[in-house]
């Protein structure tokens, strides 16, 4: 049985990591939204979405991120992205989301950016 989207999670240095694997569109967005909601309920506001397993994202997925960012930032946290493939990065750029979100080449860099004095997005 193929699975269209799975979202594993992990906590590292107080940062909640989300690993969407598959694609994120109107069909699969509930799964992603569910994990994002659970993260906020857990009072985890430092969030990294590691997109290395994400083949593509549609507006439904982008809307889910957009819909939670105010609450995350309002609680002193942030949602940062790592390891976007060409297709996904291109969509972020088309929408100008690269100005709204900090995007890192690797998960490690995204995690480190949450340390006090963590560097700017590359």
């Amino acid at each position, binding site marked *: 049985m193929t699975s269209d989207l799975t979202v594993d999670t992990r906590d590292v240095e107080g940062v909640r990591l989300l690993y969407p694997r598959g694609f994120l*569109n109107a*069909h699969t967005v509930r799964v992603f939204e569910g994990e994002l909601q659970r993260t906020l309920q857990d009072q985890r506001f430092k969030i990294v979405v590691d997109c290395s397993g994400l083949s593509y994202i549609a507006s439904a997925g982008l809307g889910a991120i957009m819909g939670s960012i105010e609450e995350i930032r309002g609680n002193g946290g942030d949602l940062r992205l790592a390891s976007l493939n*060409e297709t996904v990065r291109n969509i972020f750029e088309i929408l100008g989301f690269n100005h709204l979100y900090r995007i890192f080449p690797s998960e490690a860099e995204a995690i480190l950016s949450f340390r006090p004095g963590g560097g700017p997005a590359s």
Partner: protein
Amino acid sequence: MAGRSVSRGAKPSLVLHVPSETAFLVVVRDLTRKMAETAGFDATTAANLALAVDEAASNVIEHAYHGKPGRSFDVRIDDRPKEFRVEVVDGGDMVDPQRLPRVDLERYASERRKGGLGVHLMGKIMDSVTYRRSARKNVCCLVKRKA
């Protein structure tokens, strides 16, 4: 090395008849991407065209058919000499193109809205997106010019 090859020019249209379920969006996407690559677009552009059609099809399922299964819509793909044209045709509720939202991304996050991004993306990706009513059907026509 000696070589021969077969390649393709513009093709007559292909139609995919799709049940109104989001599970089929991935099939719509894959088919569109394949046809766009065949039409000569590079991989990134083909992925973007596939996304625009995914968005149009998602809107048919969610807004024209209100998420009800048991209906269907057509995706007609036309690889013309000067343009790549996709029509998404449904028998559900009409769209009023005048009332489609315009997104202001600066204010988007603070408005706590989730909608509007799909129509915005379609417009950014395609050269033209038009809606018309024809034979009691809604037709969303997406056109990308060839370079």
